[in-house]
């Protein structure tokens, strides 16, 4: 597909460094965890999870995201998608644990909402650097229970999401959905691996995308060779056994970069 033209209809400031951009197009078939390629014309095209049918939630980190932060209502960007495999929805009555770190909350908020609508019980562990950086706490709270952790202790448990997880009986959940910085995901992965709970878990990965449609091979992970953009970005924990997760990633040239 060619990029469609999306005009910004509303901008929400979620935290000092994170904004949600609502646009005038609805991805009706979107599954939580799927992403779009956001074309900031004249600059770059970058992957972003859909935080709702008609929004992306962006952390300002570099050139393209900074340029996005300069845009105002009425401005537009290009969008291709939705692409990739999203999180598996729970069945009615299942207990679902959502583990979100930082802007990783973006694809998980619509997941928590969809899980709730599907009739699941939803519990969220939401982590961030500080109280100010917590994203979508309200959306998660409306979908179920929320446990908060902050690195600086300004809200909830002081520490990381894993500190919260250590206190929970993880075996009581039917599904566990994880998204956040790679270091955090790697810790959660190890924790779940130790408790033999990987089968219930799904992780949304982040790798350098070029095509976004499963052809170029830029985003393939070791050792499976799976494409994050097409076979993922959401993988089951089992698919990630013996993988590069938490060890290294690749830059635009394909060179390995330590995490």
């Amino acid at each position, binding site marked *: *597909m*060619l*990029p469609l*033209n999306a005009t910004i209809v509303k901008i929400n400031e979620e935290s000092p460094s994170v904004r949600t951009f609502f646009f005038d197009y609805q991805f009706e078939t979107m599954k939580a965890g799927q992403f779009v*390629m956001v*074309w900031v*014309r*004249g*600059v*770059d*095209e*970058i992957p972003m999870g859909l935080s709702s049918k008609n929004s992306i939630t962006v952390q300002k980190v570099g050139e393209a995201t900074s340029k996005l932060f300069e845009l105002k209502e009425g401005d*537009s960007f*290009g969008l*291709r998608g939705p692409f990739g495999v999203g999180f598996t929805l729970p069945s009615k009555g299942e207990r679902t644990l959502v583990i979100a770190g930082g802007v990783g909350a973006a694809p998980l908020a619509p997941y928590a909402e969809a899980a709730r609508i599907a009739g699941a019980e939803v519990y969220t562990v939401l982590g961030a650097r500080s109280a100010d950086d917590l994203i979508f706490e309200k959306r998660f709270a409306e979908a179920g229970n929320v446990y908060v952790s902050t690195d600086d202790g300004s809200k909830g448990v002081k520490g990381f999401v894993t500190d919260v997880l250590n206190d929970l009986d993880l075996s009581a959940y039917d599904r566990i959905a994880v998204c956040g910085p790679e270091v955090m995901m790697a810790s959660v992965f190890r924790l779940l691996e130790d408790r033999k709970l990987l089968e219930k878990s799904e992780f949304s990965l982040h790798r350098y*995308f*070029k*095509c*976004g*449609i*499963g*052809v*170029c*091979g*830029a985003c*393939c*992970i*070791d*050792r*499976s*060779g*799976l*494409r994050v953009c097409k076979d993922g970005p959401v993988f089951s924990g089992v698919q990630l056994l013996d993988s590069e997760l938490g060890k290294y990633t*690749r*830059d*635009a*040239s*394909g*060179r*390995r970069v330590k995490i």
Partner: protein
Amino acid sequence: MYTLTGLKLKNPTILAAGVLGTTGASLCRVAREGGAGAVVTKSIGPAPKAGHPNPSMFELECGFLNAMGLPNPSYLGFLQELETAKKGSDVPVIASIFGGSPDEFKEVAEGLLPGKPDAFELNVSCPHAEGYGAAIGSNPCLVEAVTAAVKDVVNVPVWVKLTPNVSDITCIGNAAESGGADAVVAINTVKGMAIDIESGYPILGNRSGGLSGKAIKPIAVKCIYDLYTALEIPVIGVGGVSSWQDAVEMIMAGAAAVQIGSAVYDRLDIFSEISIGIEAFLKRKGYSDIKGLIGLSHEMV
């Protein structure tokens, strides 16, 4: 089992260069899960290259446009991937390489030799990388020199991949043959571009790029047909193959095997699907192997 320039292919479908070929693991997956008879790596050059800014590839109504810009970790960075590919895939692994001069080609080929590639494919045909690819591949003298330079330093087969963006592809094919190529591969992508009319921006980060997929199949078939007439060495067909019928058409035009690139977009196991389809066709038509089909259309007059 099928022999091509001395390589034993599992079947006549080959993964095309630059598609799912950036990592060793990905190449192994295409061979094992995808069922490819051989795999070609991403084109590797002398130094690490990040490639063009995104968008670098998207789907059109007919086919795809891409301008990756030859991103690659350099031969030094790629050696470990090549080793993984060789170890984990059960089929020949062909190293695609590029450079800006005969010497650079030589350097890259020699640099990758420790990884024991089964053959080299020389990319003198990428339409959107200044100073590389088609910049060399539209000049017969340079093509001959580059081919000879690589032949000089390796003792595995050397394939030369041609661009259709020339007045007469057979003249470039002849140059490759004179340089000692063991086969030519036709075709790389066709120069193209697309513009976003809402904004006026060319969509590709590099503004223009190369057209692949269904749109270019008739162009590829014509190039293969002409090369088959003009050359002694085998022609490997590529460009818009997405079904066994497409593969058979290319083989009848003169292709000794087919490469598949963009069509992995639809499904990874397109290689098994196509090779099974070819087998069934051969059986229905009473041919013992694909040799009987190669260039068949030249006999129909």
